[in-house]
């Protein structure tokens, strides 16, 4: 029969997405590397005989693979691997927490702007446009210079400069979804506006939101490295991947390994999250194909 040739096995949407995601090898590799980095910085420090802030002035600038220090020591004789792992805890947590805050702000702003439209929507979205006029690094540094630097402020400031893209995505989604039958039906049932926004519309926009969230982690890790490298983020003696590079430039000639390890760690983490986001985009919504 002719129809038999066209029949396909119907997959559940989740299953189909997983199949598409599995085909994206770089995204899989990214997920794996993220897992290794997270596990490494969570449990790694317990396996090392060195403390990340222990200063051993007799063993300054030990090159990698010399003796017990696998990645060598820095200008104060601290173990680079131990600092890399503790720095990973800081950098990765900032990436994830800043993403959560940025998503929350972006989703709320985007949902309100997209749902109400009109004057409310115009004001909110022009605010988004205005914040986007400031080059991120300039805005971040200006704000960081005005506040006391530290873990909490750095996280909040990164979130404050990263929520706009999410707001734009959510606004566009909510604006188009609110005309759909299920939203109209919810309205006919007498659901409140808030309920329709956050129980009906936002969950239906979850695919682009998840993609934006993943890319946002990558951006936040990158931003943390910039502000900390420039001296306005995480302050020593605490380590972060960014501030480990802060002093590396001075010792570039004599101790280049100080610059290599944290730089590779940042690049690995950011690339992995970017590839993961790319793979999720292909998997969750094949129609979306923004470069």
């Amino acid at each position: 029969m002719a129809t038999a040739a066209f029949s396909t096995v119907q997959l559940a949407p989740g299953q189909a997405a997983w199949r598409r995601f599995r085909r994206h090898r770089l995204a899989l590799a990214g997920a794996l590397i993220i897992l290794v980095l997270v596990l490494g910085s969570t449990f790694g420090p317990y396996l090392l005989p060195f403390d990340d802030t222990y200063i051993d002035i007799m063993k300054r600038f030990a090159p990698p693979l010399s003796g017990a220090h696998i990645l060598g020591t820095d200008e104060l004789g601290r173990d680079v691997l131990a600092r890399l792992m503790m720095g990973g805890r800081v950098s990765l947590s900032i990436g994830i927490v800043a993403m959560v805050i940025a998503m929350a702000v972006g989703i709320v702003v985007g949902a309100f702007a997209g749902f109400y439209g009109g004057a409310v929507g115009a004001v909110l979205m022009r605010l988004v446009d205005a914040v986007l006029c400031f080059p991120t690094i300039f805005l971040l540094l200006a704000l960081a210079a005005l506040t006391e630097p530290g873990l909490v402020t750095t996280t909040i400031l990164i979130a404050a400069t990263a929520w706009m893209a999410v707001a734009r995505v959510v606004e566009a989604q909510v604006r188009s979804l609110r005309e759909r039958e299920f939203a109209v039906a919810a309205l006919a049932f007498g659901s409140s506006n808030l309920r329709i926004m956050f129980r009906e519309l936002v969950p239906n926009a979850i695919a682009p939101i998840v993609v934006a969230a993943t890319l946002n982690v990558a951006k936040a890790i990158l931003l943390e490295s910039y502000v900390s490298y420039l001296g306005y983020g995480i302050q020593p003696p605490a380590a972060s991947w960014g501030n480990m590079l802060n002093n590396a430039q001075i010792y570039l000639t004599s101790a280049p390994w100080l610059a290599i390890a944290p730089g590779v760690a940042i690049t690995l983490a950011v690339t992995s999250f970017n590839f993961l986001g790319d793979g999720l985009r292909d998997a969750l919504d094949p129609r979306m194909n923004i470069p």
Partner: protein
Amino acid sequence: MARYVVNRLAQAIMLLVIVSGIGFAILHLAPGGPLSQFAVSSQMTQEDLDRVTRQLGLDRPLPVQYLDWFGRMVRGDWGKSYRDGEAVLSVISSHLGATLELMATATIIAVLLGCWIGILGALRRYSLFDTLATVGAMIALSIPTFWFGLVTIYVFSVKLGWLPAGNRHTIGDGSFLDLLHHLIAPAMVLALVETAMWGRFMRSSMLEVINQDYIRTARAKGMPEWRILTVHALRNALLPMITVAGLQFPTLLGGALVAETVFTWPGMGRLFLDSIGYRDYPVVMGILMFSATMVLIGSLLADILYAVVDPRIRVG
């Protein structure tokens, strides 16, 4: 057309007002607000502080202060640097040239290289070149610019000794060649991210165009392939790149700040960081507002230019 420009101009002015509002809010977020410069000095009594507050008009309602501040910004009075009392706008303009030099060079490299990679990738979709370019672009977008700068210094200055590790001139040598020699490394570093962006946008724009009906028509007419590509495909695929140039501008400015820091390039970004270090808030605020305004003007120009070359935009 005139209506589109007027519309777009009105939007830009409205945005400028919001942008200035954000700038004003940040200024007042500073510890001690605009008074912070005096608050740190222990010789100032509360009485002195009150007097200065009155003199600077800081006891007036915030909206009045904002209007006053905005009016002075528009007239070009951006305040004076705490460091040497020089007018903020003239401090900025004396550093602007070096930054524009760096940005222009990086953009030229990025546009040429990025468009070439993007076009080739689109024409040979899923080839080895395309795959490598796509993966390479993603990695380029993920490398911290300052770290790439450090690697560049290590390889080309420390190990090979080909390029200077920083500054704009060798002391006592003002020649153009010397400037060019110093420009290569920072421009290359700044161009990395830009090239990746241009390549990605160019690839998707080209892919969209070569699947259009008029390309098929041109092929059906028996037009030679090179002519189809250059006359029909490329001309149309390059149009959206005008928008990309506008979109890329904030990233380019931010990247310039980082590249200038690593290579001690005496531009606006470097000035910004120095001013932050000195807590020189008028200059910090000035540069922040200046860069936002530049971005605003950049996107306005890109939109208008796009409407000039592509009449379809004006209608929408």
